[in-house]
């Protein structure tokens, strides 16, 4: 019971944070941590418990982001769009992911890597541009709803994985990881449990993608499909991303202090891991991206950065 109480305490504490701390940096950081928690737990179910090393998670993450973005802009409420994005990830997984279980061991890893490269190239070609949110959304853009969505998703995934680890289903998954032949010998339907694990994993990855899309105001459509999202859950790149994000924060502080025009790109990417870092292709400034947003000096100097009010010119 203790871990549950601990988790409940942490969640309640975090839920109160925005009421007390108005520093955007802290909120951004917690959102990022939640995003990576969701993504890592998604990978953990498939890679950690079931032992299927997937390098194709970026596909499901990206699918969630893509569907979320379209439905959200079409006017659906964010939480419905989130669910739809997650389910579309599952549909994609049943089309390409389940057949991949024909591959075993290392072959599964490189096979899924190839699949995610296919998805990346396809998205780069089908949606070559930048995904913007419409001006009226941008005006109402606030970190609070994103913060709570991130918190809810993070909590749900942790609870889910906690429950899974103590359930019969979790044991079955672990037995598949430890020895497929032995598991089959004691009457475990390996394919069935792999499919269950993959479904849960992709549903959660889709949720993470939706959160990303809700959080980052403008990005190239292919960015959530980038292979980095497959490797991030397994590696320590989170730290690096947070680092570059701090640097950008500092640059913007500096610029807004002198009331200069700030490239909207930087401002928007402030909400996300610095997307251009490590994704050299196509990410440098293009004419589309050179939309200039002007900050109101007072917002940043006087009242702190509680709300981001900036006029968007030429959108």
């Amino acid at each position, binding site marked *: 019971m203790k871990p549950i109480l601990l988790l409940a305490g942490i969640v309640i504490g975090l839920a109160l944070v925005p009421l007390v701390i108005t520093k955007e940096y802290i909120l951004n950081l917690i959102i990022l941590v939640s995003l990576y928690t969701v993504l890592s737990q998604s990978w953990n179910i498939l890679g950690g418990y079931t032992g299927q090393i997937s390098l194709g998670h970026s596909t499901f993450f990206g699918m969630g982001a893509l569907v979320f973005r379209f439905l959200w802009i079409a006017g659906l409420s964010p939480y419905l769009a989130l669910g739809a994005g997650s389910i579309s990830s599952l549909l994609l997984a049943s089309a390409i992911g389940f057949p991949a279980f024909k*591959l075993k061991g290392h072959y599964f890893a490189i096979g899924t890597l*190839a699949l995610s490269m296919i998805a990346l190239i396809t998205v780069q070609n089908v949606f070559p541009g930048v995904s913007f949110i419409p001006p009226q959304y941008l005006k109402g853009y606030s970190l609070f709803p994103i913060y709570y969505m991130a918190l809810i998703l993070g909590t749900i995934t942790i609870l889910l994985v906690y429950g899974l680890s103590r359930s019969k289903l979790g044991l079955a998954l672990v037995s598949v990881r430890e020895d497929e032949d032995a598991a089959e010998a004691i009457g475990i339907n390996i394919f069935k449990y792999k499919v269950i694990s993959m479904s849960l994993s992709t549903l959660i990855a889709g949720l993470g993608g939706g959160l990303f899309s809700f959080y980052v105001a403008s990005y190239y459509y292919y960015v959530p499909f980038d292979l980095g999202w497959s490797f991030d859950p397994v590696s320590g790149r989170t730290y690096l991303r947070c680092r570059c994000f701090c640097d950008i924060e500092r640059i913007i502080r500096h610029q807004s202090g002198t009331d200069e025009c700030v490239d909207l790109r930087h401002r928007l990417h402030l909400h996300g891991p610095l997307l251009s870092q490590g994704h050299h292709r196509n990410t440098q400034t293009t004419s589309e991206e050179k939309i200039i947003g002007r900050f109101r000096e007072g917002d940043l100097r006087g009242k702190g950065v509680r709300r981001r009010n900036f006029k968007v010119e030429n959108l």
Partner: protein
Amino acid sequence: MLKFFQILSYGIINGGLYGLVALGLSLVFGVMNYLNVAHGGLIMLASYMTLLIFSSLHIDPFLSILLVTPAFFVIGWVLFKVLYQSLMKFTEGEKIKNSLLISFGLLLVFANLAILLWTADERAVAPGYTGKVFDVFGVRLPYTGLGGLALAITVIIALHLFLTRTYFGKAIRAVSLDHEAATLMGINVNKVCLVAFSIGFALAGIPGVLTSLHAFNPAISFDLTNKALIVLILAGVGSIKGVLIGGLFLGAVEAAGVYLVGTPYREVFGLILFVLILMFRPQGLAGKKS
């Protein structure tokens, strides 16, 4: 229809290059289980070497193979002594993992070294016959491409004959089957591995000459490694004839993809083929079921 044959012919010309790119990788992987992903980087360096030879000594790129290949043989010899020899004592799985790490590091070093030395600009070697074509019923075949295809087929067949018809080739094949048994038969496994590894590096020089005839930059090293791995899976590990078949097949499939869907999806077809082969014929097109 003419368009189809035109695209297909380019695909097959490319396929010859893919086969050649995978050749050294396949040899090294087959003989000593070293997954040398730095191979693409070596090919890229060989391209720059061809460019240097062409611009300073004015030697035709196809002739400069005679200079580039021995140079890479020496580089392979040195790198084996310095970096790879210590891996010999490991088990098969450890060898793959450690050599992968070492060579991935080398790949990054090579790519950045090339950017440092020659910048990231696109370059190409342009001898007099660049752009000249040979017309067969309206299908235009570039001389450089035809030369490359002929070179690829010759080199792959020559390596195949070397491995099957000579005494040293037999020793290499024996080592690739079983290190211990080869030792018991009186084969100096260390020496055979050293030479096979150096030959694998020398074989990086030949596709390097071919890539130098088109535009190239330091980033091609990653693409080439990618292609080499796809061909390696297509061919089946350690199969030399399979490399030629696999390379040509990959080229043809990519060409079909370009004809049916469009150039941006060229890579996709290669990857789909890769996944399908992994699923249904993991031993490769030419490999035998183990």
